[in-house]
């Protein structure tokens, strides 16, 4: 049992330390954004699961020691086992309260934003259908195209529409459709939640930042696949003005950076076996 706790703790710490080193390679983000996003989420889930299981085993061990069960860690004094168990329980409580607190704050922020944008769905004109979403055209003198997860839809300002050709507009709509279809707002929320729960941890900060980057690259790539990289790139330049961010994204598309073939998509799925490792360690039968 002691070995399991050690292995789980080591796994959690190693992933927390290694992820911000390994998963910040620009080429990985640029060429395989889907794989990178999966790797971040899989690492987060694996590290969190390993920590929770280690704490859970410590709590179970304390309970077993109190009952005088031979299954408890033999060399550990029952009093020490109880102290460790209470400590683990306290850590679990602090983690739980912190996650709940931060998740509540993020949910409130999302509700307020949804309230602010919901007015456009009554005032504006239904412009066109894009897959499952309606695209709302809003009279506005600044070029804005945005996906709203709640109420779900896409907003296009008249200035943005006027600046783009039909093909470019279609490409931009594919980009926003990807955000909605792939639930990118949830991915961003997970990153922000991790960052707000443990703000001092570089892994959490880098994950939140990387998420906001890779969701844009994933959406750019899907839009490019449907409407052509040139159309997405020129739309970025037209709507981004002198923004360096959009210029860089356009340059990436023109360089044909994405290499996400079927093999890499499979790798992005396969990476989800990671969370099985802490479960295997925790539930591996011991003599």
């Amino acid at each position, binding site marked *: 049992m002691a070995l399991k706790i050690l292995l789980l703790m080591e796994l959690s710490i190693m992933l927390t330390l290694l992820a911000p080193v390994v998963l910040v390679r620009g080429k990985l983000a*640029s060429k395989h954004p889907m794989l990178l996003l999966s790797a971040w989420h899989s690492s987060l889930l694996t590290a969190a699961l390993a920590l929770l299981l280690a704490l859970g085993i410590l709590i179970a061990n304390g309970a077993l020691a109190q009952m005088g069960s031979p299954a408890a860690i033999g060399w550990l004094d029952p009093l020490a086992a109880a102290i460790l168990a209470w400590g683990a329980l306290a850590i679990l409580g602090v983690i739980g309260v912190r996650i709940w607190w931060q998740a509540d704050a993020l949910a409130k922020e999302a509700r307020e934003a949804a309230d*602010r944008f919901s007015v456009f769905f009554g005032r504006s004109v239904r412009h066109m259908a894009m897959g499952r979403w309606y695209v709302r055209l809003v009279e506005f003198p600044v070029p804005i195209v945005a996906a709203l997860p709640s109420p779900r839809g896409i907003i296009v300002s008249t200035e943005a529409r006027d600046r783009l050709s039909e093909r470019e507009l279609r490409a931009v709509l594919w980009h926003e459709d990807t955000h909605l279809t792939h639930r990118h707002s949830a991915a961003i929320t997970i990153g922000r939640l991790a960052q707000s729960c443990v703000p001092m941890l570089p892994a959490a900060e880098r994950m939140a930042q990387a998420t906001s980057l890779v*969701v844009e690259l994933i959406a750019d790539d899907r839009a490019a696949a449907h409407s052509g990289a040139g159309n997405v790139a020129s739309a970025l330049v037209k709507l981004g003005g002198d923004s360096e*961010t959009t210029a860089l994204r356009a340059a990436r598309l023109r360089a044909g950076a994405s290499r996400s073939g079927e093999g890499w998509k499979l790798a992005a799925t396969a990476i989800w076996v990671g969370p099985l490792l802490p479960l295997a360690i925790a539930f591996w039968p011991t003599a």
Partner: protein
Amino acid sequence: MDLLWDAGRPLTAREVQEAVEEPQPAITTVLTVLERLREKGWVGRESGSSRGLLFTPTLSREHRVAGAMANALASTSDRSAALLQFAGELSIADRDLLRAAIAGNAAD
């Protein structure tokens, strides 16, 4: 934006704060929102008055929908999950990462 239109004259951040119904936001929050509106070109700022910095709307009242959009955009963080903008800004760290990636791709 509604408060600035209703006033019909330039307002200070303190006057905007006092005009907001309870619970009133902190003066720093009011200043942040006014600055964001100014950066986006929807509010003008004048200095030199004894009252301090004065803010005036640059969009006409007729553009109420535009004003509501301006308010909604200004009040929503660029990094919020509630609004995914096509031409939104990334953090400096992400721009560095992207720049390095493009340089790396070009070198391949």
